[in-house]
């Protein structure tokens, strides 16, 4: 079974530029997550999709971040304009179960390392 795919793996941009990340979850997984992992910290949830609907975006800085999952499969996360503090690894994860259980495992992609200069 193929894992969660993400691209690009690395990205370097200047502040105020825009950037987009792509994620393709494991086939058949209904739930998709985007996390931000700042150096030295644990991942923090940015947004959660159930199929193509958003179920939690409370931690997403909506003035600059946006995300979509139009067909309920792959997803893009965009930052516009980027700030220095956006430098982080952006992780995508997916989970198979449409019915949520507290013990549901999430499967993570390799992440995209963003550096904002």
């Amino acid at each position, binding site marked *: 079974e193929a894992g*969660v795919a993400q691209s690009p793996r690395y990205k370097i941009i200047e502040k105020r530029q825009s950037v987009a990340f792509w994620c393709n979850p494991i086939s058949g997984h209904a739930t998709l997550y985007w996390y931000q992992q700042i150096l030295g910290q*644990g991942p*923090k949830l940015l947004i959660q999709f159930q199929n193509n609907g958003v*179920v939690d975006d409370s931690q997403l800085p909506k003035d600059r971040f946006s995300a979509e999952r139009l067909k309920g499969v792959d997803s893009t996360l965009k930052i516009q304009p980027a700030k220095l503090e956006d430098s982080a690894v952006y992780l995508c*994860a997916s989970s198979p179960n449409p019915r949520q259980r*507290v*013990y549901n495992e999430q499967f993570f992609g390799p992440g995209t390392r963003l550096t904002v200069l």
Partner: protein
Amino acid sequence: AQSVTQLDSHVSVSEGTPVLLRCNYSSSYSPSLFWYVQHPNKGLQLLLKYTSAATLVKGINGFEAEFKKSETSFHLTKPSAHMSDAAEYFCVVSSIKSGGYNKLIFGAGTRLAVHP
């Protein structure tokens, strides 16, 4: 609200010696707890999870963790460290949010170094 505290940001051991990574949790109800490992430039991988079936949980690569409700702890152990165990380890608690969707809350991580 659920939270986890990893008591050590860095742990260093010699190859072949035991590993202990400490985690305390806070939860208003019986939690589900996980340990994930992150190797450099790789995604997070599940080591093991506690779902109330048994307090001693065995995971991959010889790791295990014991759920102790009285101490609100879920420490990760391994009898004998291997060089390939060097990585970042995250203790995670899961909760169900309003609307019925689950959410993972990560600790800050413990970096494990293994020396020859």
